[in-house]
């Protein structure tokens, strides 16, 4: 059966269930388990649950070392940007260890970090930088947009024998959703078709999925039925589902909160242009953040981000019913 939970609680439920199931799973990071009555500390003890100083290099590096020694750490990093302080450990250590050992060792770990807190947290705490990790061989990248997916993807991340970057969206923190009881796993590399439609394919990630669904409702009122797909993981990426949809609709709009250049939407666009060219009846459109650090002031913050209006306009452009911007 299922129960209603906020997104953040669904993630914690997954961590808790996995820690109950497998005593090798650890959970550590800054500012967790700071009081004796912390539920994780009480349930699993001070061996497996620890608070660390502000030391991202050591936190992530230690996770690698503990994984090499056979444990399965989950590192609480809070904000995606804090991973940047320890970039070597993420993209030049964790990811490549197994490969360079010729398969002798594995590095099962989860880096849990929030992103996109576009509520005035300003440029250093609001980026959608997950795309930086998508092309890194050996890393997996998960990006849930619902509470159920948050639970299922976290559980899968913990059971995966590879380093997984699990990015949860801060604006979704308190979004409630139906979450299956007990053990629940969402496989990596399996997109979710959130809404079926025949006229245009919209692929949206994270927080933009709800914007895309809202845009689809509006478009439906205009007689346009949009198919909305959430890839759920960017690495591995479920291209077959996307290609199948584009083969049906012939039109593709990509929505992502990251900046335009070097983002997930660019990756998907290139793959569709390569493998699905014959299906396309119009150019592919990307609706992303502008190429700018997220500004603090609210009207500017809103301006740089993708929103429902911009998605609707992009759909109209690929349908030929709106002029394409220069």
């Amino acid at each position, binding site marked *: 059966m299922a129960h209603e939970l906020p997104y953040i609680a669904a993630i914690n439920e997954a961590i808790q269930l996995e820690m109950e199931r497998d005593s090798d799973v650890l959970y550590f990071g800054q500012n967790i388990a700071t009081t004796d009555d912390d539920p994780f500390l009480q349930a699993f003890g001070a061996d497996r649950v620890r608070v660390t*100083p502000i030391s991202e290099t050591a936190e992530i590096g230690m996770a690698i070392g503990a994984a090499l020694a056979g444990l399965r750490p989950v590192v609480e990093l809070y904000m995606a940007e804090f991973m940047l302080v320890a970039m070597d450990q993420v993209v030049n*250590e964790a990811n490549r260890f197994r490969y360079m050992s010729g398969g002798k060792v594995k590095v099962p770990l989860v880096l849990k970090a929030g992103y996109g807190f576009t509520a005035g947290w300003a440029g250093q705490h609001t980026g959608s930088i997950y795309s930086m990790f998508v092309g890194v061989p050996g890393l997996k990248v998960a990006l849930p947009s619902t509470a159920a997916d948050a639970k299922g993807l976290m559980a899968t991340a913990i059971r995966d024998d590879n380093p997984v970057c699990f990015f949860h969206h801060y604006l979704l923190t308190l979004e409630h959703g139906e979450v299956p009881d007990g053990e629940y796993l969402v496989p990596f590399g399996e997109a979710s078709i959130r809404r079926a439609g025949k006229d245009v394919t919209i692929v949206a990630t994270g927080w933009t999925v709800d914007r895309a669904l809202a845009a689809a409702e509006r478009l439906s009122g205009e007689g346009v039925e949009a198919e909305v797909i959430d890839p759920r993981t960017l690495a591995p990426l479920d291209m077959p589902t996307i290609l199948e949809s584009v083969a049906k609709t012939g039109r593709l709009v990509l929505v992502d909160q990251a900046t335009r250049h070097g983002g997930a939407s660019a990756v998907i666009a290139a793959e569709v242009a390569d493998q699905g060219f014959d299906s396309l009846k119009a150019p592919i459109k990307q609706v992303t953040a502008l190429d700018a650090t997220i500004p603090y002031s609210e009207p500017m913050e809103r301006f740089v981000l993708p929103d429902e209006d911009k998605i609707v306009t992009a759909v109209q452009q690929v349908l030929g019913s709106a002029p394409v911007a220069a």
Partner: protein
Amino acid sequence: MSGNGLDKDRLGWILTQMTRIREFEERVKSTFEEHPGAIRGHTHLADGAEASIVGSIAALRDGDQVLTTYRCHGYPIALGSDTKALMAEIYGRSTGICGGFGGSMHLVDPDRGFLGTSGIVGQGIPHATGAAYAAQIRKKGQVVLSFFGDGASKQGAFHESLNIASLWKLPVVYIMENNNYNVVTRSDQEDANAAAGEPLAVKAKAFSMPGVTVDGADPIEVYDAVRAAVERARSGEGPTLVESKVYRLSAHGNIIAPPGVPLHYPEHEAITVFGNRDEYEAALRGDPVPRFRGRLIGDGTLTSEEADAIAAAAKDEMEAAVVFAWESPYPEPEEAVNHVYA
């Protein structure tokens, strides 16, 4: 040599490992002349550090683990890894210990406790700290040795790791092999303590952990210090910083050159950069391998025939390793996409 439990067998073992490491490294170096092109990229040798490496590892028992830098050949040799597979890895062959995927800087042998290396200065220190965390909660009494150079002690990773290890009382011993150089930079040019003429072990005070400096050319002095640190770690009292003073007898590594330019080992930076031939020659005179051999013969622990036999066996072993590597096939190109994910 009584009082530290080192009997004739153990002392013979120490000399044997030191000799094997030296012989292996000499063969790696001579490959650049004998088989140009066989070794690509950048290799870093442990000649001069054998006493420090073996003296440390002699303090371990089964189940203990080791992580190091890219100057990594010596440790798995002392831990018992197959030297044919090690040489084949350096030659990039499919029979290499990592299947040709890693090369000289990235040897791995988890079955013998050698969990791996990093090619990025200092970044393996947190890995060792994490392995020690795992050891702590497993409660099997395992200890981890984390080897790195003096250059790494300026890296944030060093500070963050030693702080946490001390706070959590992790069963790890941090062994800083201070060879006074970071490639072409002398440590007094980059380290505030070195510039002030202080031993680098003073850095331990910042983490509230014991710090000790030893002569890394004397395997027994190294053994004594590391054994004490290992016991401290094993008993749950936490980490120690051991500064082991060594002198590397080769240059930092072979020259760095684009493909097409033959690679070779230049002279030591003391000479090529600082014009200090005296320093280098003094180090040669203090070469730890013949020094220890001489000591064991001198005090009657070994006869010179026994010592010669050790040397001959090492020579044969490493000759066979080279032949094995040279004759081994390369991996199939398509194998390159294997092992990306578990």
